[in-house]
């Protein structure tokens, strides 16, 4: 079981208040992603849950038990670090066995768990190697293996894919999702990459400056961002945010339109502009349109076969149903 409750948890480093009091409940078996720009406090929040940092005030409960002052080892959580944090002087097998050795697990049981973790993670051939002899992806798998064998109440991932190259990242993303489907254990995953958040999460927690901006499923965040920050942060490419007179027409301080909700045409439309950079990806085409007088550059996502290029004059038409409106404080207007 791994239900984690944060009750008015706050953290200050000296005078600096990194996380103002915050409430959050993570249900058993959920895959929760903390996402936000660097320095938003997402890693600190994870470390508070792990027990690697002491909280300044508030309470953390794991499965109903007060874990606020428990040392990390007693919380029953396993963590996977961005740097992998493998023990360089131990073989892969010893790395995976270490938490069980610390917990005094019976040696036969240790063997069994190592074997099953190694099989699940394709590490059987590497058990006798040192971490230094492995590739980045293999090291990350060892780190995950070391977490799995503990059979923890919850897994904590601190930007685990940031050190991998793009292709591996996609592969590991799938592996972690599959792992979650198989184990059905609570996972808390920290990332600054909103694509990882959108693809993996059951629930996304968007953070900015230590404050939770919104909690919701990926689709809730995509369709109904609670404020302009979440609107701009979730979705790739970013939502176009437009202020001024155009927004006033919709009775809002700011309006937002996602790149995929704007139609582009060479002949007619609502807004007129000139294509700056056009990125033809085959499946999609991204246009960066200048001179609309609305925003510095509007990003448009069009189909794969659009015969428009740099310097062309184009007309843009937003999908009226998909315009997000925000007030002066940046909050969503329904």
């Amino acid at each position, binding site marked *: 079981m791994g239900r984690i409750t944060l009750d008015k948890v706050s953290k200050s480093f000296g005078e600096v208040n990194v996380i103002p009091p915050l409430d959050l409940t993570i249900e058993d078996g959920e895959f929760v992603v903390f996402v936000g720009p660097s320095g938003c406090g997402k890693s600190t929040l994870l470390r508070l849950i792990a027990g*690697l940092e002491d909280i300044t005030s508030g309470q953390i409960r794991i499965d109903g038990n007060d874990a606020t002052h428990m040392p990390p080892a007693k919380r029953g959580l396993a*963590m996977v670090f961005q*740097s992998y944090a493998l023990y360089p002087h131990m073989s892969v097998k010893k790395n995976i066995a270490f938490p069980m050795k610390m917990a005094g697990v019976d040696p036969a049981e240790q063997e069994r768990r190592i074997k099953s973790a190694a099989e699940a993670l394709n590490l059987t051939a590497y058990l006798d190697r040192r971490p230094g002899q492995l590739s980045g992806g293999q090291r990350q798998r060892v780190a995950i293996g070391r977490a799995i064998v503990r059979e923890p109440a919850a897994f904590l991932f601190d930007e685990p894919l940031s050190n991998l190259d793009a292709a591996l990242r996609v592969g590991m993303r799938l592996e972690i999702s599959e792992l979650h489907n198989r184990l059905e254990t609570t996972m808390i995953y920290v990332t600054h990459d909103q694509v990882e958040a959108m693809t993996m999460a059951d629930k996304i927690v968007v953070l900015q400056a230590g404050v939770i901006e919104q909690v919701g499923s990926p689709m809730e965040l995509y369709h109904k961002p609670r404020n302009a920050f979440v609107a701009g942060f979730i979705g790739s490419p970013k939502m176009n945010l437009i202020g001024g007179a155009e927004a006033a027409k919709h009775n809002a301080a700011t309006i937002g339109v996602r790149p995929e909700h704007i139609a582009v045409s060479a002949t007619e439309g609502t807004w007129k502009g000139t294509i700056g950079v056009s990125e033809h990806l085959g499946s999609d085409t991204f246009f960066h349109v200048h001179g609309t007088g609305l925003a510095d550059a509007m990003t448009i996502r069009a189909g794969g076969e659009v015969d428009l290029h740099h310097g062309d004059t184009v007309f843009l038409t937003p999908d009226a149903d998909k315009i997000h409106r925000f007030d002066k404080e940046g909050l969503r207007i329904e």
Partner: protein
Amino acid sequence: MARAVTPARKSINTAAAWTVALIIFFPILWTILTSFKPEPVAVASPPVFLNFDWSFENYETVIQQRGYGQFFWNSMVIAFGSTILGMIIAIPSAWAMAFVHGKRTKDLLMWMLSTKMMPAAGVLVPIYLIAVYFKILDTRFLLTIVLMLMNLPIIIWMLYTYFREIPVDILEAARMDGASLTNEILYVLTPMAVPGIASTLLLNVILAWNESFWTLNLTAFNAAPLTKFIAGFSSPQGLFYAKLSAASVMAFLPIMILGWFSQKQLVRGLTFGAVK
């Protein structure tokens, strides 16, 4: 781009390097040569270089009549004892300063280092009196403790520097994996810091082996190490240069052999972390 070095320049540099090395090594070479000379030849003027009757007589005298074994054993106990004791105290201290540092950690480190700047003679009398009071003067126990205390700041500083190089993530991973503080230090930190710990160990054995101020002042015979052994030859009866040389060679030989075999480790340890 590598700098261009002409062959002429290269030979001049090589010659210069050898000259400097020989000048530095000369006293040791001279001591070794003298130790094989008969006493009159040792003080001959002009000095005799190689043209004399080589003999081990001085060594025989030194070993048989002056009880080399006892001094050697005392040196071993004091040098290794003080170093190991120092390590037991220094590893946890350096751990704390490297990984759980607070506002005053830097001040504390500087203060510890500053104790090395104080002249040892300044505390000789109090320490001597304390030793007299506890009746531990001229014991290996006293010297082990005193030398450990003298070298502790250096041991802690060295270990602190090595520990700082170890990624804190790995220690945190150990904590998450359920390791207690003792297990974290024992199974994770220490094995990772082996090169640093080894060079600290070696350097401190060497320092303790060669230490002469405290060993000369706090021992008479029972706990006297090799430094005292050498000093014994500059006796009131006059100087016996050849025997003094033989004694010196026998005093520095063990530590030189140790240093020779561990020089790779020592250099690696001393430059550890200098280049990432």
